[in-house]
């Protein structure tokens, strides 16, 4: 009897298995495959070609509104939809965006912007100076985490006509033009935002901008943008569509890229070496100068023995930056010499004291500071707080500090917990940190070193360093109109900070990105190509002319 049933059950199971396998085979076989239906033509003359869809990896951007956030997850999306008054080229020089020209008064107190004529919002309404005034007064100066620091500097904003905006400042502020790009000052449509709460406006879900791409749709796993054929920069954009696939975890983005499902993403440095050997893939940092960072250790100067400069200098000598650069950062980030990223011309200066890897010297300094080795060879037991991304470098540092008698306990924390411990509670001995410098030392560097910025807020002066001379130099440089003089002032700042070593500078540079070699033009979008690539990227296998 069992045999009879066994046969039936077997038959049922076999049918089920055949059906399931059949369905899977059909689904595998009917897959749309990866990417674009790529025609065989290639752009031979090097001039941009038209059409194609770029699939980019992104994180969930939250509200799609550039004026209320400085988040690096939001601006890659908003940067394609919105514009600022200017855009920074790869040398951080302002170039026209919504403003076609501008002039600064000789006293540096008035900036007059002439706007591009005939610009329209994606919903067809005309763009004007009223949009600029509204966005600054009602959104940017109140809600944008970085731009709102301009509020005490701006006296008033005038709009003498629809195509002119005049900013009147209370005091000279030299980096002003670097704070009016889309990243810091994306312009919103007044007709959709006036009289509403900008944080809750429905347009944050269906954004209307002036940029090269229009918002088409948003699902939980993707955001789709389509070409704005009425874009004010004639002939652009070149692509038909950009699709952002929301992939929060870096390993998943890497897998999707390797499976051919993504055309563009930002790999973590350890994966760069592997991607570089992959055919048809370009890995570079060009166009990311605006996101240059210095990765550093922050000693807590409130605590002994880190208040002793000899101990900080000893640690600087004990750590082999070359080795960390080559191993933990695949050579993409270079050994750092000071508080400003080496790619950040013209303000970076290497005329500072150097700390070559010299464990013997480190030991002598520690001896001099009274930290003699115990019977077990340990001079000091301390801890380092970090987030998981820093773990590979932290392991190297633990070993190297161990060699000079500093025993390091690594405390890996989730990102927010680490920020809170280091910058809000100031409850740490040593902390890892990564601060983005550009587009001006006044904006990116000053915050980590001035006495007044010893406050409980993220990415401020966590070490508790205070040097009146450094404060005075930063203050002068902020209002110094002459670029060469500013360069000199910041060179002196770097010299003093490196001498005092309130942070131990490890590696610096811009983060890498990888893209399918069939696409090009990423770096042409300026120093913040991460945000504005849609303006210039084109598909090599696109058509030679724009189809009507």
């Amino acid at each position, binding site marked *: *009897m*069992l045999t*009879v*049933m*066994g046969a*039936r*059950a077997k038959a*049922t*199971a076999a049918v*089920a298995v055949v059906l399931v396998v059949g*369905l899977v085979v*059909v*689904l*595998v076989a*009917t*897959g*749309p495959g*990866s990417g674009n*239906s790529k025609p065989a033509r290639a752009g031979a003359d090097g001039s941009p070609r038209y059409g194609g869809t770029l*699939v980019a990896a992104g994180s*969930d951007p*939250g*509200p*799609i*509104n550039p004026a209320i956030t*400085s*988040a*690096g997850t939001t601006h890659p999306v908003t940067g394609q939809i919105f514009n600022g008054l200017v855009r920074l080229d790869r040398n951080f020089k302002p170039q026209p965006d919504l403003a076609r020209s501008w002039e600064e008064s000789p006293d540096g107190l008035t900036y007059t912007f002439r706007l591009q004529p005939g610009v329209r919002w994606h919903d067809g309404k005309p763009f004007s100076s009223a949009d600029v005034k509204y966005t600054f007064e009602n959104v940017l100066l109140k809600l944008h*985490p*970085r731009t*709102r620091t301009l509020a005490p500097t701006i006296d008033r904003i005038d709009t003498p006509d629809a195509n002119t905006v005049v900013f009147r400042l209370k005091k000279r502020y030299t980096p002003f033009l670097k704070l009016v790009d889309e990243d810091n000052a994306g312009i919103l449509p007044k007709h959709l935002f006036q009289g509403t709460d900008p*944080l809750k406006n429905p347009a944050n*879900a269906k954004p209307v901008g002036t940029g090269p791409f229009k918002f088409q749709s948003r699902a*939980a*796993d*993707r955001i*789709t943008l389509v070409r704005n054929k009425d874009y004010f920069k004639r002939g652009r954009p070149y692509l038909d569509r950009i*699709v952002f696939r*929301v*992939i*929060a975890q870096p390993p*998943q983005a890497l*897998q*999707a890229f*390797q*499976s051919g*499902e993504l055309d563009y993403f930002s790999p973590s440095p350890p994966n760069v070496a592997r991607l570089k050997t992959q055919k048809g893939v370009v890995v570079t940092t060009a166009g990311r100068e605006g996101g240059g960072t210095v990765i550093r250790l922050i000693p807590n100067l409130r605590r002994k023995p880190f208040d002793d400069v000899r101990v900080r200098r000893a640690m600087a000598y004990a750590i082999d930056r070359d080795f960390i650069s080559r191993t933990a950062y695949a050579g993409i980030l270079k050994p750092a010499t000071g508080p400003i990223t080496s790619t950040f011309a013209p303000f970076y200066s290497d005329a500072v004291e150097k700390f070559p890897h010299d464990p013997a010297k480190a030991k002598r300094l520690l001896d001099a500071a009274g930290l003699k080795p115990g019977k077990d060879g340990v001079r000091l037991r301390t801890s380092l707080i970090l987030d998981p991304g820093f773990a590979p470098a932290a392991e190297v540092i633990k070993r190297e500090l161990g060699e000079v008698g500093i025993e390091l306990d690594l405390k890996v924390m989730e990102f*927010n*917990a680490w920020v*809170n*411990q280091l*910058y*809000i*509670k100031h409850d740490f001995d040593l902390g890892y940190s990564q*601060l983005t410098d550009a587009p001006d030392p006044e904006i990116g560097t000053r*915050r980590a070193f001035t006495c007044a910025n010893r*406050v409980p*807020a*993220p*990415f401020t002066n966590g070490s508790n360093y205070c040097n009146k001379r450094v404060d005075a130099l930063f203050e002068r440089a902020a209002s110094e109109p002459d670029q060469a003089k500013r360069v000199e002032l910041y060179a002196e700042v770097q010299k003093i900070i490196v001498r005092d070593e309130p942070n131990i500078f490890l590696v610096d540079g811009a983060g890498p990105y990888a893209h399918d070699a069939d696409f090009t033009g990423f770096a042409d979008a300026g120093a913040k190509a991460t945000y504005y690539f849609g303006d210039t990227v084109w598909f090599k296998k696109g058509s030679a002319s724009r189809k009507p």
Partner: protein
Amino acid sequence: MLSYAARRLAGTLGLLVAIVVVTFVLVDLAPGDVAQVLAGQAGDPHYLADLRAQLGLDRSLGHQIGAYLLQVGRGDLGFSTVRGEPVLDVLAGRLPATLLLGGTSLAIAVAGGVLLGVIAAARRGSRLDAVISVGSLLAYSLPVFWLGQLLVALLAVRLHLLPSGGMTSATEQLGSLAVVLDVLRHLILPAATLAVLLMALVVRTTRAAMLDVLDEDYVMAARGRGIREGPVLFRHALRNAIRPVITVATSELGFLLSMLVLVEAVFSWPGLGTLLLDSVLSRDTPTLVGLLLFSSFVVAGANLLGDLLYMRIDPRVRLR
């Protein structure tokens, strides 16, 4: 039965209030808050203070919980500043993906698991039984993220047979049938991963329950009356053995939800699981509480449904 259901629902309400309180307290204890997350690299204490005031984070925890409960009483789950959307819209946007993945996996797991469990019990001691039993034990002990990564590395990255993640292909604008097929292609790996885990449990429970009833007199009697083995197993024995399977399937809903978080994260599946992870990391309390309320409600509802199903299947069970 109705009054029983009403009493159970009342109990559930108390549970939901407790969940709100616990979640608020836990998020409050976690370092950092949403204002800090939104500030990003811009360290301005005034900005933090203004934003905290605007979001009501400067009020006492008791006040925040009270205000939230009143709001939920009015049917409003609040607004997620991090996402820029009402929480209800956020949840509604993610629910279909989770229902599809969870429902498919559960259906495969129960159907396949019961079938395999019955076969294993009917062939007790055979080689097939050993394969099924050891296989299900192995499947149950596999770490879900490992299994998921393995499948992706093999079938997506190496062989390019299936997509590595997401729910739809990003490139083409597809017609409606093509969209359905596309979603099904994306569903295969995550659903298989989840189903393997759940199925293992169902197989083991079914096998054990079937072994208990197969020696009962009524099964012998049925066989004695010349009824074929198929109907004996599935109509007579399984009907009596299915109760523990239902218990497992419904009480495993909580387990399913927690597995969903992992599977969705591994496959970038845009459902409630990835939302849960994101809202914890971004300290998005309104979304987090809304999500936990919703999932507790579902789990409590499923348990109630399980009890009611019992009664339907086994007339001896009376609910009081």
